[in-house]
């Protein structure tokens, strides 16, 4: 077997729910060895999943798991397309249960691999964190602490016959690298091949972001049928050389889309760190093959780091946001005055920020330097004041939000359309622990069609 196809069915939790259907259809049609990955786990997504699990031990996996897999599970099993996802989130065994039930419903028999061991909140894990993290928050405020596992436990699950693998926290590119290692028998020290497989994974892991999603700029970067973008499918050979293409539908793959995604969330291009390898794209180049296919050349790799990253999430207090619109003559001055009124009446110990949406908002800083300077921005007569607050306790933020509400009767003239939102916040920090302090666990469960 010379090459393998790997498609991406989701690039984040909350991605287009129908995206996997076209990907699986094209993988089936190809008749080639294939896998589909689902990346649904952001930093905070996992903390929120942990909170759901605390409320109900049967929850804590990706909420869209059923909706994502139901339309494609049977087709994948019938066509021998491996499914790998971090949709286990804070509870991979529960995700395994859901997949097992789904298999029974659609009449499929399959082996499910469950990868866990990333959770560091147990007594042993906490000991490791205490020893390794200078900035560890008060244990009472901890919500989650998860190490980034690499490809190895997923490879073990595949070697043991898993057709679907549900993981918790693993490095995103490892979802792609694992089936390649399994299929081609790569050594876990074959740094160049691992580097190439990792960058193929990097390009796949955000789904449509490499096929025309998050790209359109009308008149400059136009995207065909942006409402039905085909998600990416990479074709990777036994040496890790790869071509990025896409599933049928809208979108596009060219030098521009691939370059934007190749550098996305990359710092030093010579050192893209994962648990599996340090990938190097400092010498990478692209060749447009036509037909929405781009070959990525020149990727290499270096020996993997000795440590694993752990993301620690903890109680981050409360965030309140209030908005009110002003329109017409002197609208900006009235919006600014409203912000000042709220500031003067808010509790003194609160963090606060004002924006005038339509004039100056996302560009400005939390300290308010731009606000105080009365900074530039386009003149507008249709603006929206936004005030954001944060404090450790809910009552303080509620008190401040009440001052936005009171602008209706006591604020400047002509304010309308107040909206208020209050939500708890998850804070995050990270630290590094020795690789051997993290014990990945692999379990294989057989789901039989009754």
């Amino acid at each position, binding site marked *: 077997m010379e090459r393998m196809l790997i498609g991406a069915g989701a690039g984040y939790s909350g991605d287009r729910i129908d995206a996997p259907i076209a990907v699986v259809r094209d993988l089936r049609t190809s008749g080639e060895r294939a896998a589909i990955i689902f990346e649904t786990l952001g930093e905070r997504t996992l903390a929120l999943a942990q909170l759901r699990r605390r409320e109900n031990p049967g929850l804590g996996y990706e909420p869209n798991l059923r909706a994502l897999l139901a339309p494609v599970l049977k087709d994948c099993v019938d066509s021998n397309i491996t499914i790998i996802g971090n949709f286990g989130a804070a509870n991979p065994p529960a995700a395994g249960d859901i997949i097992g039930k789904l298999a029974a419903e659609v009449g499929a028999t399959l082996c499910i691999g469950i990868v866990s061991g990333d959770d560091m909140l147990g007594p042993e894990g906490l000991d490791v964190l205490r020893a390794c993290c200078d900035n560890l928050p008060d244990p009472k405020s901890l919500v989650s602490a998860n190490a980034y596992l690499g490809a190895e436990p997923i490879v073990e699950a595949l070697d043991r016959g898993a057709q679907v693998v549900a993981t918790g926290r693993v490095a995103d590119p490892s979802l792609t690298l694992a089936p390649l290692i399994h299929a081609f028998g790569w050594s876990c020290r074959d740094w160049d091949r691992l580097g190439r497989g990792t960058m193929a994974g990097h390009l796949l892991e955000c789904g449509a972001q490499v096929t025309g999603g998050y790209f359109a700029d009308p008149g400059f970067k136009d995207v065909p049928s942006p409402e039905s973008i085909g998600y990416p499918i990479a074709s990777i050979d036994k040496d890790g050389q790869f071509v990025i293409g896409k599933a049928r539908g809208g979108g596009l793959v060219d030098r521009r889309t691939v*370059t934007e995604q190749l550098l*996305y*969330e*990359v710092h030093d291009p010579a050192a893209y760190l994962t648990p599996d390898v340090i990938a190097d794209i400092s010498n990478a180049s692209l060749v447009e093959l036509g037909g929405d296919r781009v070959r990525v050349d020149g990727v290499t790799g270096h020996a993997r780091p000795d440590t694993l990253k752990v993301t620690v999430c903890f109680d981050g207090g409360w965030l309140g946001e209030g908005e009110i619109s002003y329109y017409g003559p002197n609208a900006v001055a009235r919006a600014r005055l409203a912000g000042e009124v709220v500031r003067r009446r808010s509790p003194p110990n609160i963090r606060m*920020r004002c*924006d005038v949406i339509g004039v100056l908002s996302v560009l400005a800083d*939390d300290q308010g*330097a731009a606000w105080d300077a009365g900074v530039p921005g386009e003149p507008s007569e249709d603006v929206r004041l936004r005030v954001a607050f944060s404090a450790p306790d809910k009552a303080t933020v509620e008190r401040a939000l009440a001052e936005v509400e009171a602008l209706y009767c006591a604020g400047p003239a002509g304010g309308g359309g107040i909206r208020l939102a209050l939500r708890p916040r998850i804070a*995050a920090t990270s630290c590094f622990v020795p690789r051997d302090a993290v014990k990945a666990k692999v379990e294989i469960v057989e789901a039989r069609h009754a």
Partner: protein
Amino acid sequence: MHDLRLHALAHGRTGDKGNRLNISLIAYAPEIYPLLVQAVTEDVVAARFAHRKPTSVRRYELPKLYALNFVLDDVLDGGVTQALNLDSHGKTLSYHLLGMSIAVPDELMAFARVRRNDA
């Protein structure tokens, strides 16, 4: 010479990790890349984002991709878990870089995509 916004010459995308932001700047045409290298230096980018008080700005050159990658430290008010900014990821900030004007020599104007917004 013509003053043009980078948006007429290049495209880009931001990514965030904690309080660190990266912005790619990718020439539409390889002929434009040397101009970007010469005009869009670390100092110029630091000045463009001065109001966000970066503690460091690093630039990585990727000549085979006709691209520059900028890494700005401590510009996100603590990042997605702490900032009060509507866009706590800093996702909109690639267009702040693309909104910057540079001087473009006559012989490179053929590679510029001049629209009303950028001239």
